[in-house]
């Protein structure tokens, strides 16, 4: 290629970077391009997800029948802790914001990058540092942690394993989350394209924006809590440990004051993606734009007030229990509003159920089950029975995996042609969605029944009466393994060998589709001026003529 500027602009961000190194590893790991950073997060997160999923498969193998099948109790306890820690802190919390937020927030706003590109790169490196610390905690003497991802005190003060290091890793990861949040909020405030008023922003932007606020406000609470635990462990100062005069319930409060809002850090961005995909494949405007946008803020706000529903059996006063139960039911409402508006968006559309849309249908079903079983857990009399049983294990897998995990795949399948300029095999993708549906329900639905029957969670072994359902669940995990391999293989194959895709194969109209695929280094030749509302498909004709 020549270096005439017109041609230069045609180069995609893969061909043209902003680092001194023109190619190779250095052109990536020092790049401040939000798209490259998004893809680096994607690679890291894909690895962590795979590792934690394989750990999950091994746990299921141990649970295939009563007694010891494969490992001893200590190993099992370590595995569920690692599985939880990796899935929560390395996959699902950073997940969608770090990968798709980074890649698409600036594109959807019509910006050339985030507000603070270097801070963005720094956040990525903090994330990697945190991940390395987690890995170190596995191999250093002391041994891998065995406390569960909640690190409840006093057990976590007594356990001889590398707790201090592991929670310090969570501390470090928190900073990555906070800095990303600050970056996104500033970007949304400052870098919207001309003409993009607040209510012309795509809903993914709204969701990421609401999430960013939670990241900034809630994460410091866990950071402080972690510092207190480390002080307690290292210096024997009594804060939470009753044998030192501390209060273990205080720890649970502080932990959930962060970790419950963190649940919304996990789900809100996914809801944003859903609000992008449905209009595109129904080719009509979203139903209830403002209701969806504002419900994100409502969730972010009310989400702060419900943390103690994780503690209904902890011995809190009965008054606190009913107040938190009431608030919990109220936070269910904005999520319901979203689901109803999404389904209404399909009404009188022109629906082309391509794989991203099928993923979303999967999501609506699985997430609804997750949300509705949340009502069972929000009600006091039933929660007292089901708390800390397999019912909860089923519930949060339906919400986190069936909800956010499913949408992670939906987002990958939706934005794939934009990110890579190529296309995966559509038929294989459809099969993947169908298999996922079967595998998922086989793997997790039995856990609801097990929980109701009284099988507690974090159990290495169980009573004979639970055996047949446990077996079904393990069979489900094998099908899930096959499905995940198929889904990921299809994507890898698409990246390496896929046919070239058109620039806008689905007919999307938000700003990321107004530039070439893959986008050039600074996203747009000319910053677009926004004249339409975000899901106005009458622009499609004009876009084709561009």
């Amino acid at each position, binding site marked *: 290629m020549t270096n005439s500027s017109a041609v230069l602009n045609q180069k995609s961000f893969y061909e043209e970077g902003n680092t001194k190194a023109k190619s190779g590893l250095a052109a990536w790991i020092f790049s401040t391009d939000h798209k490259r950073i998004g893809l680096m997060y994607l690679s890291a997160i894909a690895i962590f997800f795979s590792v934690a999923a394989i750990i999950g498969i091994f746990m299921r193998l141990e649970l295939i029948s009563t007694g010891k099948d494969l490992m001893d109790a200590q190993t099992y306890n370590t595995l569920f802790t690692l599985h939880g820690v990796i899935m929560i802190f390395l996959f699902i919390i950073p997940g969608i914001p770090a990968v798709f937020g980074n890649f698409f927030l600036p594109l959807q706003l019509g910006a050339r990058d985030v507000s603070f590109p270097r801070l963005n790169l720094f956040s990525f490196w903090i994330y990697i540092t945190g991940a390395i610390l987690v890995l170190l905690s596995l191999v250093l003497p002391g041994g891998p942690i065995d*406390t569960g991802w909640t690190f409840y005190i006093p057990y976590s003060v*007594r356990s001889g394993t590398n707790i201090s290091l592991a929670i310090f890793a969570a501390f470090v990861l928190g900073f990555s989350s906070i800095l990303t949040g600050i970056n996104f909020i500033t970007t949304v405030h400052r870098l919207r394209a001309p003409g993009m008023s607040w209510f012309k922003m795509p809903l993914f932007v709204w969701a990421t924006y609401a999430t960013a606020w939670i990241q900034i406000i809630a994460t410091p609470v866990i950071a402080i809590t972690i510092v207190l635990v480390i002080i307690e462990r290292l210096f024997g100062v009594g804060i939470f440990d009753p044998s030192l005069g501390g209060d273990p319930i205080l720890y649970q409060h502080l932990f959930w004051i962060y970790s419950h809002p963190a649940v919304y850090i996990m789900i809100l961005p996914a809801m944003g993606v859903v609000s992008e995909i449905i209009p595109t494949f129904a080719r009509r405007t979203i139903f209830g734009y403002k209701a969806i946008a504002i419900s994100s803020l409502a969730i972010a706000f009310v989400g702060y007030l419900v943390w103690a529903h994780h503690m209904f059996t902890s011995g809190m006063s009965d008054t606190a229990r009913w107040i938190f139960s009431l608030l919990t039911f109220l936070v269910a409402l904005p999520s319901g*509003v979203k689901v109803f508006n999404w389904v209404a968006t399909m009404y009188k559309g022109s629906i082309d*159920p391509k794989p991203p849309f099928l993923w979303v249908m999967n999501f609506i079903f699985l997430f609804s089950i997750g949300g509705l079983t949340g009502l*069972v857990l929000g009600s006091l009399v039933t929660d007292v029975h089901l708390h*800390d049983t397999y019912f909860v294990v089923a519930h949060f897998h339906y919400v986190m995996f069936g909800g956010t995990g499913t949408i992670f795949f939906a987002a990958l399948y939706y934005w794939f042609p934009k990110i890579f300029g190529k296309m995966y095999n559509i038929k294989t993708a459809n099969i993947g969605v169908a298999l996922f549906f079967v595998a998922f329900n086989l793997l997790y639905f039995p856990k609801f029944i097990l929980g109701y029957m009284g099988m507690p969670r974090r159990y290495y072994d169980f009573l004979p009466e639970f055996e047949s359902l446990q077996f079904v669940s393990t069979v489900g995990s094998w099908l899930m393994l096959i499905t995940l391999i198929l889904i990921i293989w299809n994507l890898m194959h698409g990246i390496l060998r896929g046919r070239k895709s058109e620039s806008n194969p689905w007919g999307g109209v938000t700003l990321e589709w107004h530039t070439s695929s893959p986008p050039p280094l600074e996203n747009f030749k000319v910053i677009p001026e926004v004249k339409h509302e975000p899901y106005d498909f009458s622009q499609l004709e004009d876009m084709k003529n561009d």
Partner: protein
Amino acid sequence: MLSGPTKHVETADAVMLYIVAVSVLLLIGITVTMIYFVFKYHRKKGHKPVNIHGSVLLETIWIVIPTLLVLSMFYYGYTGFRDSRIFPDDSMEITVTARMWSWDFKYPNGKVSDTLYVPVYQPIKLLMESVDVNHSFYIPSFRIKEDVIAGKINYLGFTPEEVGDYDVACAEYCGLNHAFMYTKIKVMPGVEFYAWYEKSGEVKVNDEKTEGNIQ
């Protein structure tokens, strides 16, 4: 469902049934509507999409109706729970001590056992404390649990109405043998219970191996 060894079981299961029934209806409603729309408005059929921006009426309906539904769920959940927290004056108070990984029960007369023996129809109040990490005292058949924590006494109450053996599990993760921290609660006819209670020392009534076998 809806009958069991304590009255509380009926209440808890009825609330569960109510919430699950409403949920199943909602789930079916959402899923069927979604699938119907996908077929009805499939692009192949060549409809021209209609851009409906929303409807204040619908938004109101699907805020108000779910609000009423969840408030009713809250209410039933709350009253059922509240009733389970009433400890009658004639309750027998038994002290429960949890440790990694076993349970001790101490009766008003000072007797100690590692299985919980109680007379049928006698209201029981458990005063529970841990000597080490957090545990949780869980009787699945009675639908009750409460965490057992060091430095703090937590309470749990119930009135057994059916003679039999029921499992007691630990429901709060407590380390290596968490999964094996099971014991039993034996609900006995009053006469049998007091025969045991009055004898000095730890005496085992019946054979320990009659697991979950309800007479």
